[in-house]
């Protein structure tokens, strides 16, 4: 049995999914968080069900890649129940998707979510009346407290058993006639496609890009017929056919909305609007933007460095103690490598990573990121993109992989490519660890801050260059601005834990193994071979040749560069063997050079092989250029 959660972005689908499946989906307060679907198995009244969380979609017209994913899933997979999640506080808009979903003729239940939010706005929704109109059950829920979710699942099971598919929305007479005439014609076509004929007819009239490509090309006669039908609609209403159909649905949704909603009172001025008066202010907004990110990174550094030092000392003592335990030099080397790998994870990476992920989760869940898109849209236009690209770029500070995947919310392929490439230039949490652990630690926090500022400029200039190479006007910005949410402790905790766990179970073992391998390589003096191979790069950058190996390992995981560096140099006091200038050059190069393997895989999937190779060459070129530049500048320091 398969249940699928479908709803518009920010309606709380993923929160519901997490509640019932024990936290697997990533939630955030902006559109496009779930770019791929997440599935989980659970038992409802002793029945094993598969529950799927689809990316948020405003409608079943696929406008961007994330929405395409949702629609393709709905149309091609065997689905037993659609759980349509609707934000009760913006019910009229949500109902438009509900009406489209009814056209799919599947057993369905509506989760009327965020009813508390709606009541706050003075909106009371009559769920019984709504169920009566749609002819499918409606369950009131408050996802983040879990209220109504057990009933929702029970109802979904009931809907499945009784096969409740609701009623098809009826449009105005003249439109309905045109639709029915097309339905008759597409019946044969849909037999092979497993799509309800009426759904296909509506989407063809709405000039759905994908269906036009699939259907009309192979059925020229149908194509002519649909064109005629569209013309009829256009002549009858004086509007393009897509507007006629979508406006019909809009009017129907408004009509239902007015029937089921009681406005209890004029909404009180919301404190959250006052927050926007400051945070989206044309002047103060930018000051707060700067302050918020300044505090964000400063706090991470303060916390991280306070934890790093005592832990490192502890591991130093441990290292000396264990060394004397093993007489065999090879075993000693291996143990040493393992301890250094473990120490790297506990003492160097985690102290920065934990506060970083908590902070990022807070920023995401609060709903601040779309405001940043609002403030920075005009700057993004200057580099040939628009405000929506800000979100993938900001996510890049966390990890390049989700950043690359988040580019799916962008409409044009060119924007996706440029944003994905730029997002790999943003220092991710792993590279933040390097910046903080190396530059901030040895040269001072101001140098680290300077690197971030320089990075933003580099991203800007690279954007300009890419725009020059791919001249095409970016489609304008349209983005929903969700309400602020007070992030719940549980959600922040679980989300951060989920990301930290990813480091612990995937990256950390690689760190330890990498560290051991390097020890063995050093023991047999094999690292010299790699170092020699890398010597053209290290020579150009004026770095000690021993760092060559660390650069190669860094491609596996960026954190490795730092931990390997300490190991390759054979000391924790980097300043004994490297000058401040060399530390800076090394860090600059590591920030920009080849994305890590996981990112390359994500790029490959999202923008294709050719563009991925271009991105790798492009970023490496920038890294070399800036590395040499840093070397030159720092020789004056």
């Amino acid at each position: 049995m398969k249940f699928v959660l479908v709803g518009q972005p920010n309606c709380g689908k993923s929160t519901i999914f997490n509640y019932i499946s024990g936290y697997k989906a990533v939630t955030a307060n902006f559109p496009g968080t779930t770019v791929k679907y997440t599935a989980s198995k659970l038992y409802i009244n002793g029945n094993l069900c598969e529950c799927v969380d689809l990316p948020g979609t405003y409608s079943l017209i696929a406008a961007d890649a994330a929405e395409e994913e949702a629609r393709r899933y709905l149309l091609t997979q065997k689905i037993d129940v659609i759980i349509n999640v609707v934000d009760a506080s913006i019910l009229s808009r949500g109902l438009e998707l509900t009406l489209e979903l009814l056209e799919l003729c599947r057993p369905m239940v509506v989760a009327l979510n965020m009813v508390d939010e709606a009541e706050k706005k003075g909106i009371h929704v009559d769920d019984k009346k709504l169920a009566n109109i749609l002819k499918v059950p409606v369950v009131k829920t408050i996802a983040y407290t879990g209220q109504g979710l057990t009933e929702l699942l029970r109802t979904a099971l009931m809907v499945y058993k009784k096969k409740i598919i609701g009623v098809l929305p009826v449009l105005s007479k003249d439109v309905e006639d045109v639709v029915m005439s097309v339905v008759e014609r597409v019946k044969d076509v849909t037999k092979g496609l497993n799509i309800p004929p009426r759904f296909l007819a509506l989407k063809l009239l709405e000039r759905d890009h994908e269906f036009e490509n699939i259907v009309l090309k192979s059925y020229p006669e149908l194509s002519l017929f649909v064109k005629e039908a569209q013309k009829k609609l256009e002549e009858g209403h004086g509007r393009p056919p897509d507007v006629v159909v979508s406006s019909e649905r809009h009017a129907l949704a408004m009509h239902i909305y007015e029937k089921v909603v009681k406005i209890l009172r004029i909404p009180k001025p919301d404190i959250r609007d006052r927050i926007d008066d400051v945070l989206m202010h044309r002047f103060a907004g930018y000051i707060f933007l700067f302050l918020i990110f300044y505090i964000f990174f400063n706090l991470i550094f303060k916390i991280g460095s306070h934890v790093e030092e005592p832990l490192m000392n502890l591991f130093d003592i441990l290292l000396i103690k264990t060394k004397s335990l093993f007489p065999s030099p090879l075993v000693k080397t291996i143990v040493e490598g393992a301890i250094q790998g473990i120490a790297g994870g506990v003492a160097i990476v985690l102290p920065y990573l934990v506060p970083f992920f908590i902070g990022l989760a807070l920023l995401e869940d609060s709903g601040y990121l779309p405001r940043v898109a609002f403030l920075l849209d005009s700057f993004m236009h200057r580099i040939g993109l628009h405000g929506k690209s800000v979100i993938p770029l900001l996510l890049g500070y966390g990890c390049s992989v989700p950043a690359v995947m988040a580019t799916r919310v962008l409409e044009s392929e060119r924007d996706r490519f440029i944003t994905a490439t730029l997002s790999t230039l943003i220092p991710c949490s792993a590279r933040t660890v390097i910046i903080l652990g190396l530059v901030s630690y040895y040269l001072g926090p101001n140098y680290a801050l300077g690197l971030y500022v320089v990075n933003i400029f580099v991203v800007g200039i690279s954007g300009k260059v890419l725009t020059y190479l791919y001249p095409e006007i970016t489609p304008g910005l349209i983005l929903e601005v969700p309400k602020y949410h007070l992030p719940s402790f549980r959600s922040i905790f679980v989300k951060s834990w989920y990301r930290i766990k990813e480091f612990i179970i995937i990256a950390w073992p690689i760190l330890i193994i990498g560290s051991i391998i390097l020890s063995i390589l050093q023991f047999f003096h094999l690292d010299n071979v790699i170092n020699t191979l890398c010597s053209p790069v290290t020579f150009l950058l004026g770095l000690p040749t021993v760092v060559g190996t660390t650069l190669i390992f860094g491609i596996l995981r960026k954190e490795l560069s730092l931990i390997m560096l300490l190991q390759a140099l054979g000391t924790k006091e980097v300043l004994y063997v490297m000058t401040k200038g060399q530390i800076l050059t090394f860090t600059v190069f590591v920030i920009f050079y080849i994305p890590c393997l996981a990112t390359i895989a994500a790029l490959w999937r999202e923008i294709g092989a050719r563009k991925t190779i271009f991105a790798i060459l492009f970023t490496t070129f920038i890294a070399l250029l800036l590395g040499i530049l840093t070397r030159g500048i720092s020789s004056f320091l």
Partner: protein
Amino acid sequence: MPVTLNMVAPGKKVRIIMVEGGIRCRQCLAELGVYPGDTIKVIRSAPFSGPILIEANGGKVMIGRGMASKIIVEEVS
């Protein structure tokens, strides 16, 4: 008198007459509940020719200047 949305001062309520952009533009707006005939409120605009924030059918949407210049509206009192 009809004007384009980017010309409307913050705080004003306007009715959408038509959307001049292409089908993608119309679909994107419709997805967020912005239809011809609806009344929307302009809340604020970002500096440096940044986007415009509007309220439509209970939700808030930001629209870039370029797109806003293709939306024809008239003021309602």
